[in-house]
């Protein structure tokens, strides 16, 4: 078939994409077959995003697309042009860790740490939407991320602590 016959767009091989990642615009040459995960890790060097299955079954590759958590292993990079993408590297602001990062660190909630980037992003999406979640809301929001080390206990406590600290009146 010849693509000219169609009024639609046809993408084959490689393409130069403009991606908005962590507030910066990047031009990256990507294969059309590339998932966002592959582009972040392999083309952009943002290896903070992890992978544990590449099939949408584990949650370690979670990133935010316009604030919504998605699995970057199941999203084509060519579909990621336009929206704002946030990875774990984009959580800290001006060199200051995000309250979630601080709480996770303070409670030693990261053991091997491999699931943590994805969990932090899922948690951030929750808090951005619901600043004062109940424990059940946290459990629900993190139920798309597996962790084999922690039993989720310290992770959930850390989210609660971040909530408490964020909601504290500023002195």
């Amino acid at each position: 078939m010849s693509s000219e016959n169609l009024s639609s767009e046809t993408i084959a091989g490689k393409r130069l994409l403009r991606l908005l990642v962590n507030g910066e615009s990047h031009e990256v040459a990507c294969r059309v077959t590339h998932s966002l995960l592959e582009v972040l890790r392999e083309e952009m060097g943002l290896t903070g995003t992890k992978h544990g299955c590449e099939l949408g079954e584990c949650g370690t590759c979670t990133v935010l697309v316009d604030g919504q958590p998605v699995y970057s292993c199941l999203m084509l990079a060519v579909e990621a042009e336009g929206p704002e993408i946030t990875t774990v590297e984009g959580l800290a602001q001006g060199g200051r860790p995000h309250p979630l990062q601080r709480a996770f660190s303070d409670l030693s909630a990261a053991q091997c740490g491999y699931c943590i980037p994805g969990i932090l992003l899922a948690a951030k999406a929750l808090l951005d939407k619901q600043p004062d979640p109940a424990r059940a809301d946290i459990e629900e929001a993190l139920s798309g991320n597996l962790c084999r080390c922690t039993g989720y206990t310290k992770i959930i406590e850390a989210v609660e602590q971040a909530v408490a600290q964020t909601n504290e009146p500023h002195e």
Partner: protein
Amino acid sequence: MRKRMSPMSRDGKKNGFSVIGKPLPRIDGPAKCAGDTRYADDIVMPRMLFSRLLRSPHPHALIHGVSVRRALELPGVHAVITGEDVPTKFGIMPSTQDEEALAVDKVRYVGDPVAAVAAVSEDVAEEALRLIDVDYQVLAPILSIEGALEAEDHRIHAWNRRANIQKAVSFEFGEVDAGFEAADEIFEGTYFFQGNTHLPMEQYCALATYTPDGKLTLWSSTQTPHYVHRALSRVLDLPMGHIRVIATPVGGGFGGKSDPFSHEIAVAKLAMITGRPVKITLNREESFYVHRGRHPVKMWMRTGVKRDGTLTGMWFRSFLDGGGYSSYGLATVYYTGALQTVTYDLPAYKFEGVRVFTNKPPCGPKRGHGTPQPRFAMEVQLDEIADKLGLDPVELRLKQVVEPNTVTVNGLRVSTIGLRECIEKVAASSGWKEKHRLLPPGHGVGFAASSYISGAGLPIYWNDMPHSGVQLRADRGGGVTVFCGSTEIGQGSDSILAFAVAEELGLRPEDVRVVTADTDLTPVDLGSYSSRVTVMTGNAAIQACGNLRERLFEVASEVLEVPADDLEMEDGRVRSRSLPDRGLAFAECVERAETRFGTLGATGSYRPPRHPGDYKGAGVGPTPAYSYSAAVVELHCDSDTGEIRIDKVWIAHDCGRAFNPLWVQGQVEGSVYMALGEVLMEEQIFRKSGVHKIPSILEYKSPTTLETPPIETILVETDDPEGPFGAKEAGQGPLLPVIPAVSNAVYDAVGVRIHEIPVTPDKILRALDQRLKDPTVPSFEFPTPIRWAPGQGVEVPQKS
């Protein structure tokens, strides 16, 4: 050799410590939460090639030839290797070296590696695999314990004496017949613990370079760089001095990354051939083939008791389904029989165990290594005994808890034991007395207790060297770096070192740099297995600090004009205890010491004490210190659907001194989680064809936040004399009691006994219908038992 500084004698501080025992954060937290930690697969190198392994699609087959010609012709392929390129056998245990990096003439499970490719991309490497032609002669697979025992002239391996039996052991400690004669009641049961796997979130990955100077470097997601170092040297025929192994931060191990692996050897060889960096990252499916997880074990247990519940004797048999290779199996089979004696007084004990080969991925060490299975059998049987005798299961245990400083009937020395307190506390905080047999129908509580080792008493290969070594460097700017071969797998071992050194030298943990798991830079530590790391590296670090401190005190005592034994290190200063304003900044002290002595460094090392057992096989079980746990599980079970919901887990753990309460809790919570996965849903299971039934992280069920109940952790502190600052292990032991406690709680809730792990809804319904059969055990003639009893052997006094 070891000199213990006693931090206990310090005064002026709560519990005498500045950082130990406080809920301070781990040192690797900020990097891990920033996504900054470099795991193996995060490393990229210029000119890097990618490798993939060709795996056998057959569970059991002879290889008559492998043709790689077509693969080599594929553009982008740089090298292809097969078994002939790396024919030397290896294996973690010196006496069972039965693995090949790439199968030479036989494959023994679906997934057994046969060839390896290095190519410009993973895609090309993958494509090349399809162009490798293997001439297989398919053999009948052996897929069950019974099948392995019956197939007397159909062997999986040729090296072992009896067909398909890797190891059979038999012991009798004390007089077991007399024990049963003294009993009022004898209980017997059969049990089955299904296999399961570690499923760390990080997939296996290794990267090798071979530089023009003839030096090989391997980065790997491994728990045991030292053993990988040895295996590489052996298989690649390179001197150990020319090989450097770096364990990258491990994204979860749980025992699954403790063997030297095919993929590690393959990338090393490919790097040597191509002269380029070669990386391999296994995918999730492959992790189920690499496995080395929990052995499926069939068990039979007979226990004799007095009417009041006092144990008079126990006879235990285990049948382990080992899979295609030995791995740690030799140790595992012993472990299934070793620790029954360290929780409750047992005057006579007989143990028979056998591990067979089957055509399935090899089993090995998973959290609790070989002990969760017998612990399940034993704690469920004790629950049944209590029930039949009309006793409270908690009381039954409390009646006969092992006393401190006991040598058990099988020659294990128990020093500190906080089991009684664990049991009492967990019973109290769970409201056991108000709940057991008293909850509404469908609701139940279950109890169990257990013990685990804080590091194996013996190294894996026979030697008298330290198990762990630490080097300390203090530089004139006041910086301190601690070097140790230990491997951070998430358990917090890097933080243990930083905190131990900070405590000893009066520094802040964040001021101590930690360099670990690099065989070029760090002294040997045997690895992150058997819960040995805190105790062994901690002690080595304390010793190194003591050595460094001697020099610092020598100069400080002159400068401050106080005797050295009046000095202490606190708040970044060396100061006098009696005249606290007389002090010297740590950095200044270091500078002066360097001026006096030259470059400052110190070493420390640790070797566990000798143990009393002196029979053949006594090497498995001893440890510097046993940890203890007790758990109560509350659940409800829907008798229409058989579904179980865990409402809460209370767990008390004797961790010696809690090195850091947050980290110990983290280990306990993680252990409880893993136990719940095993008891409720995780299964490494196979089709009749020998293929793994569900090799994916979707279908191999791992609990999510929604299945994980609240966990209440109670730390029982015993201050073990052998532990650093009194600490014992916490990373594995707390898994053990949870599994039988769930089964016991199911009985309390709906009145059925499930003698099988996992306890799934369909089994519960079958049991409620009285259609669930008890597991069977095969008949097998065990060897004549080795007989031993305390006092009969040569008592070797403990060192400390």
